């Protein structure tokens, strides 16, 4: 339709007063001056809304969820305070869509913008409107004197008058020396604020070349992971949402995995030292993460229980809740400790070093060689252990297999840039399906053990606690049943990932699969 606005950035230094005069000279008629309005733009730390082409803004009284890139309003809601979580909103379509996009993350204020608009019309000789013009001035509220500012002129053609609008736009452009732009106020604001706040992504996007020396390439990966860990520290300490710790732990786990897989490219004693320290660091965060996961799952557990028992597990979760503050304090203390500061400093220094004489020869081999070898090895182990589970019923290996799968996934991510994405993607898809099955199965194992251990800690003299025990029994029984169903699906997912065709594909990309019966 003829609905596409033509937008121009007004050169800096052209004041509102000057624009008023210039537009009047062009025959534009001022129709409406809108009072200044302040918008608080909200998104998660990792900009999940933007990634989902959504935009959330709060005016001080109203919350608007809009679709990018045209800012069309999807849902609106009167709201006296900006929400922190999707669950802060009343039930309804806005909450639903928001929850799907951001849960369990918190909303942060990523930009505060004050803008004011003046609406003009260009008329023909019979006073029919041919085009609408909007002059908008916006300022990012950073609290600083030289906060970014934006002055925009939008020409909005009316249907059936595109030619007239284009002509007007051309004329304004040359008369007022305007600069064509695709930006509008929200996009400008998000960009400008992003420039100030920096962008965060937990994605591992390291660009490696196949011939890069192995130690150097590994250091790049590890540096990127260190950045991710550090970027999450503040959010963990401020307890903004549970994803900061989650992302931190994933980066840490990937770090440990990379160090284990690539240990041959660094001096032995340094690797041993850091692996030990990083393992301790990981343990330090286990307790808090467990509590986060179970507390987040509370509603889900309740939903499993029969109606008459749904309240009965409350003591269990009260118990978890009562321990969370302590667990958080422990993690915060850990992150603020001198030991931690020293570890980070040593680790960063190590990653900043260039490979030298004291390094093993493998440090200088092209990264493509160990990358292929490690992936092939890892896959071989999965084929071997999965076969043992299926042929000999060694179900305790399911946990091992899950960890091996995770490690393979990390390897494929580390080295994604070295192999043709179109060939690797189908492998990852099958691996993910296997991991989903294994993950769900082993999670249920862990959850049963965890719930039983919490139940043990309850005071059995209390009637509430006794009812909680019965409810826990019911949950454990349900989980066990679900586990049997998952176990039945394991064979299919495993065969799918390790079929002869898959093995040929792995061999082609990464080299020979070892220790596996043909």
């Amino acid at each position: 339709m003829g609905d596409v606005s033509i937008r121009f950035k007004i050169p800096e230094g052209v004041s509102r007063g000057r624009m008023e005069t210039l537009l009047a000279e062009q025959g534009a008629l001022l129709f409406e001056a809108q009072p200044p309005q302040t918008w608080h733009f909200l998104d998660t730390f990792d900009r999940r809304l933007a990634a989902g082409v959504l935009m959330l803004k709060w005016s001080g009284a109203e919350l608007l969820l809009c679709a990018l890139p045209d800012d069309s309003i999807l849902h609106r809601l009167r709201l006296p305070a900006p929400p922190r979580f999707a669950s802060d909103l009343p039930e309804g379509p806005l909450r639903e869509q928001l929850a799907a996009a951001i849960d369990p993350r918190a909303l942060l204020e990523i930009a505060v913008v004050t803008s004011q608009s003046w609406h003009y019309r260009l008329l023909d000789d019979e006073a029919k409107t041919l085009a609408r013009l909007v002059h908008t001035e916006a300022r990012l509220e950073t609290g600083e004197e030289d906060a970014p500012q934006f002055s925009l002129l939008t020409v909005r053609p009316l249907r059936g008058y595109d030619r007239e609008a284009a002509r007007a736009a051309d004329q304004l452009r040359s008369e007022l020396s305007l600069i064509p732009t695709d930006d509008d106020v929200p996009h400008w604001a998000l960009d400008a604020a992003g420039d100030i706040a920096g962008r965060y992504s937990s994605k591992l996007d390291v660009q490696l070349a196949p011939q890069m020396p192995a130690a150097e390439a590994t250091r790049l990966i590890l540096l990127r992971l260190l950045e991710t860990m550090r970027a999450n520290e503040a959010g963990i300490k401020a307890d903004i949402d549970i994803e900061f710790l989650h992302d931190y732990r994933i980066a840490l786990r990937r770090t440990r995995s990379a160090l284990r897989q690539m240990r041959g490219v660094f001096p032995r004693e340094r690797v041993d030292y850091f692996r030990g320290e990083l393992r301790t660091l990981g343990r330090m965060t286990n307790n808090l993460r467990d509590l986060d996961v179970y507390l987040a799952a509370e509603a889900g557990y309740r939903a499993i229980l029969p109606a008459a028992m749904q309240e009965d597990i409350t003591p269990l979760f009260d118990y978890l809740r009562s321990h969370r503050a302590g667990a958080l304090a422990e993690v915060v203390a850990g992150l603020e400790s001198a030991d931690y500061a020293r570890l980070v400093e040593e680790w960063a220094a190590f990653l900043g070093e260039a490979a030298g004489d004291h390094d093993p020869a493998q440090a200088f081999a092209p990264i493509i060689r160990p990358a292929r070898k490690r992936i092939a090895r890892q896959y071989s182990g999965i084929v071997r252990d999965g076969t043992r589970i299926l042929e000999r019923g060694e179900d305790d290996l399911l946990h091992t297999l899950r960890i091996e799968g995770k490690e393979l996934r990390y390897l494929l991510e580390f080295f994604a840039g070295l192999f043709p994405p179109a060939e690797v993607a189908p492998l990852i898809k099958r691996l993910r399906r296997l991991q989903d099955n294994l993950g769900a199965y082993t999670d249920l194992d862990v959850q049963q053990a965890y719930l039983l251990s919490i139940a043990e800690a309850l005071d059995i003299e209390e009637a509430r606690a006794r009812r909680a025990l019965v409810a826990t029994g019911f949950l454990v029984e349900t989980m066990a049943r679900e586990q049997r169903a998952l176990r039945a699906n394991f064979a299919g997912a495993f065969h799918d990932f390790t079929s002869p065709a898959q093995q040929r594909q792995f061999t082609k990309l990464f080299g020979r699969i070892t220790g596996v019966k043909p």
Partner: protein
Amino acid sequence: MTTLALYSNKGGVGKTAAAVNLSYLAAQGGMRTLLVDLDPQSAATFYFRVKPKLKRAARDFEGGKSLEAGIKATDYENLDLLPADFQLRNLDMAFAERKRSHKQLDLALRRFRKEFDLIVLDCPPTINILAENIFATADHLVVPIIPTTLSVRTYEQLLAHLGEKWLAGGRVLGYFSMVDARRALPRQVMADLREQHSGILDTSIPYLSAVEQMGLYREPVPAHAPDSPAARAYRALWEEIRGDVSGLG
């Protein structure tokens, strides 16, 4: 999507005034509205200050494709206009030449069903093939009736022509137009007609100079004088129609 036709086989009864004001009110209420000016005298087009192009050929109605290019935005949110770019006589003849001659308008407007919530047809006073086309595409006819014996007779002729199906379906919405409340005769005529026909709306549009002056200020009455008695009357009429017709929100 709902199609309302402001229809009467008499001229000068207030069809165009109603089409302009009702479509404006619908658009104000958030309905994406298209006003189709079928009258070559192009009064509705004039009220919205749009310049009609009289050279368009009647064959353009075929399939409606180039109709789409003819749509003009009015100065009001949600309200577009298809100007009177056709010679009525040509349109009649063009329709007559085709197979399924009384379905041509419906076929042409079909493509707008998705884009608009409401189509309002401002019809010329016609009883030939164009009228059959209007009857075939409109969900409801909104018929202004001046409360005089002659006008009432015309209205009854129309009902007779349309037949039982239309009446039973409540598809004809008559209302009294240009009512001079000070005179006794119209009151009697109105009471009698209401007695005999159930399809007459409770709201009437009085004779008011604000409506007459629309040609001077060239705006819908509720846009020009939102608090005037005329604006209030059209608002009440629109509310009553909305209440009686499904799909008007």
